[in-house]
């Protein structure tokens, strides 16, 4: 009998393990993988909430798509190219443009969502990338025409561009914006614990049971994480890398992050990861603020981070050398002994 009792207790314990109140849903939106984890809600409610968030993501994707016919952004871009005739713009899109303009100014225009024509020229406004014939003349001409966010005028629910070469591409903004929207919605619905991941940009609500949400940071050249960290309540994490969207031509890698100063893909960096403390726009910042750091030259990266108000960041340069800010270093855990194993990897403090 005691043996039977023991079995029952064990079975109950095992049951307890398998019924962790964690709901996970996955989908493909924004041309990437979207993962939603909700902890501590009943499964039907968690499913309903996650479905709502996924639908909202799909709506944003359809509205903010940079090259699909019929999206709000495509229609606006077509109007910008036509000349200075104001066209109606939704309050949401107007607010996004104004916010993106502020962030673009703050980044000394290294974050520049107005260079859609350059991104298109490099073949990155497609679902899949293949090497393009580099049209140096067209690139130089576009850089000279200086498409900038400040060229857009928004008034009385309409928008126009003083510069016809402005073509919006919110690839470095929309996913972060969607994170903020989702986090706000879930909080408003009373959800205490959730983790939302849109194509690698992640925001945390609460924690995973009795411990913080744990996030792995992808190794830019290997499958699996290079480091891990706890993502506390309200924090967001974002990475700009040269390994998700790129093509190779004559042995050289061209990634999707274009330096607006040269019109060419930024070189010299494999990845920049940043952590953003709780704020209403933490998700947006986690998407936007890694770009100026990625694009800046090696000597200017710390300054670019400062400009964007980022104190937690990690840079992996073209040689695989890792640089971390002092604050970030305290948060990172290295899951394997990568330091001695990969002799080219060095960990260095940034000023």
């Amino acid at each position, binding site marked *: 009998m005691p043996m039977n009792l023991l079995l029952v207790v064990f079975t109950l314990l095992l049951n307890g393990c398998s019924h962790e109140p964690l709901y996970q849903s996955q989908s*493909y939106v924004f041309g990437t993988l979207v993962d939603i*984890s909700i902890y501590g809600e009943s499964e039907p409610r968690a499913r309903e909430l996650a479905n709502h968030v996924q639908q909202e993501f799909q709506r944003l994707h359809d509205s903010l798509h940079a090259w699909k016919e019929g999206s709000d952004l495509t229609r606006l871009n077509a109007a910008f190219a036509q000349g200075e005739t104001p066209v109606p713009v939704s309050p949401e899109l107007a607010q996004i443009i104004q916010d993106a303009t502020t962030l673009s100014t703050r980044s000394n225009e290294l974050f520049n969502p107005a260079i859609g024509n350059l991104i298109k020229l490099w073949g990155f406004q497609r679902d899949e*990338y293949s090497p393009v014939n580099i049209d140096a003349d067209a690139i130089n001409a576009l850089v000279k025409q200086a498409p900038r966010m400040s060229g857009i005028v928004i008034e009385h629910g309409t928008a126009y561009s003083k510069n016809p070469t402005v073509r919006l591409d919110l690839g470095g903004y929309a996913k972060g914006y969607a994170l903020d929207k989702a986090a706000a919605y879930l909080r408003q619905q009373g959800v205490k614990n959730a983790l939302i991941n849109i194509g690698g940009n992640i925001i945390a609500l609460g924690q995973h049971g009795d411990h913080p949400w744990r*996030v*792995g*940071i*992808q190794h830019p050249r290997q499958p699996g*994480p290079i480091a*891990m960290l706890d993502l506390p309540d309200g924090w967001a994490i974002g990475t700009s890398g040269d*390994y998700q969207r790129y093509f190779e031509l004559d042995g050289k890698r061209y990634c999707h992050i274009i330096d607006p100063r040269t019109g060419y893909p930024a070189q010299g960096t494999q990845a920049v990861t940043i952590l953003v403390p709780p704020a209403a726009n933490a998700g947006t910042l986690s998407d936007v603020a890694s770009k100026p750091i990625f694009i800046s030259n090696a000597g200017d990266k710390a300054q670019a981070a400062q400009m964007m108000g980022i104190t937690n960041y990690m840079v992996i340069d073209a040689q695989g050398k890792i640089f971390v800010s002092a604050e970030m270093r305290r948060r990172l855990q290295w899951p394997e002994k990568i330091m001695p194993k990969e002799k080219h990897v060095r960990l260095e403090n940034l000023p």
Partner: protein
Amino acid sequence: MSGWKTCPKPLPGDWIVISAGLLLVVMLFLTLWHGEHAAKLRIRQGDTIYATLSLDQERTLDIHGPLGNTRIVIHQGRARFVSSPCRNQYCVHQGWLSRASQVAICLPNQISLELLGAKKSYDSLNY
């Protein structure tokens, strides 16, 4: 048999054998101990878990995605994308996955592989 009862002092040659043994153990530890070995492979297809399979088998799977057929192979405790209809072949270039928490994703064909260990070392991956 009486000779076995006393333990003679090790000779220099014994020390060499013992040292070599210890050195071998240390070397094996350094070369083979690469984090937790994975036990299972989780395959996701679109928004659903397609299968969670033991890595302790030899198996080839063909999974259908929006672009067509993706072939995945499980071999000697490892798994990988072998062929994919996507243009860039990033997923195939990822090569073999062998350790827990390793991930390979094919975004165009919406199929992902994840190796699971005894316990998940993180909740989500930043990339």
